[in-house]
């Protein structure tokens, strides 16, 4: 009798351990990059002190704009949402989506981007991107900027974003 009781308890414990835990989002951000500003786009592929912080005639650094791109992967069983972004390098940092409406291209702010469970969302040219406006200095090829993405459930994720002219392979 005691033997069967012990077996039952063990089986119950095993069943409890095997039961699925509450689903959670597991967010990873991959392949991040940001466009160099125009003053940082030419010349050598690496920033040089002589070029650093320069602006083109007619353009001040505070007018310069850039965009950051990346791929968000959610390996978890629950959906999440990207709800904001911040970067010290820019005065205005917004989630944007490029839309072409009636042949007119426009970049519209979006409040949130859903990240489905076991899914991925790509931020890429011509689609979702993080707009960086009012840059404090030109973004030079070769430099890295800090970008913090705010997720609804997963919280803040801070990235080192390389400045380069195209997406990493």
């Amino acid at each position: 009798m005691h033997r069967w009781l012990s077996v039952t308890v063990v089986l119950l414990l095993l069943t409890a351990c095997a039961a699925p835990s509450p689903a959670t989002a597991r967010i990873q951000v991959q392949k991040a990059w940001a466009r160099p500003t125009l003053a940082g786009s030419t010349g050598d592929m690496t920033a040089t002190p002589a070029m650093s912080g320069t602006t083109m005639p007619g353009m001040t650094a505070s007018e310069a704009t850039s965009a950051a791109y990346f791929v968000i992967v959610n390996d978890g069983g629950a959906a999440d949402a990207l709800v904001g972004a911040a970067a010290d390098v820019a005065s205005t940092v917004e989630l944007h989506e490029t839309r072409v409406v009636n042949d007119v291209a426009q970049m519209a702010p979006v409040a949130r981007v859903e990240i489905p469970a076991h899914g991925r969302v790509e931020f890429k040219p011509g689609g979702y991107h993080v707009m960086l406006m009012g840059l404090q200095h030109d973004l030079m090829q070769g430099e890295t900027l800090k970008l913090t993405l705010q997720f609804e459930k997963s919280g803040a994720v801070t990235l080192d974003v390389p400045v380069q002219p195209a997406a990493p392979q």
Partner: protein
Amino acid sequence: MARPLWLRIGVGLLALAVIIAAYELIAPRVQPLPVYMALPEVTLTNQDGQPYDLGQTRGKVVVLSLVYTHCPDICPLTTANMKQIQDRVRSAGQDQQVQLVTFTVDPARDRPEVLKQFAALFHADPSNWVFLTGTPEQIDTLIKGLSLYVERVYYIDNTPVPETALTGPPPAGPYLVNHTDRMFLIDRRGNVRAMPPGSRADVDATMRLIEQIVQDRTGGS
């Protein structure tokens, strides 16, 4: 018994008519391209600061695009597509017949030296690709002549405000420009014959249109 000559000629002509009719039915048809509008004749300024009369492109097929260099997302895509077109035109041996033109819709910020740097970023070959700016009035002539939509969007307290919705003078600081996302393919007489997408171009499809205009010696008349 030999058939009479007139009967043999008649049967032959009938067979010829059937072959011609069948060819007309099955041969691929290329529809002639419409004429949308004429490229405005205005003198702008190229990336070297020299005057550039758009009328000087007469006699060449023109691929025209519009950009502003502060545009972080759309205009780089359009210009990368233009670069592909330049490379494909060169591979086809048509770089003497096809001129690429990119003009800014933001002349206040895109001065010639800015455009020159932008062109270099995309490895644009200046031998048949020119980047143009001008006074606001000159650029406006082109915008109106091509029926383009161009509107500045300012950021006030981190909120985008189109210039038409401003209640006061434009604020200092960054602005974006919403604009028509098309290219313009122009024949040797200066007539716009096709307006394919710009940033979302299907370069193969655009090249077929360019080839059709190159082969069209009537100039749309």
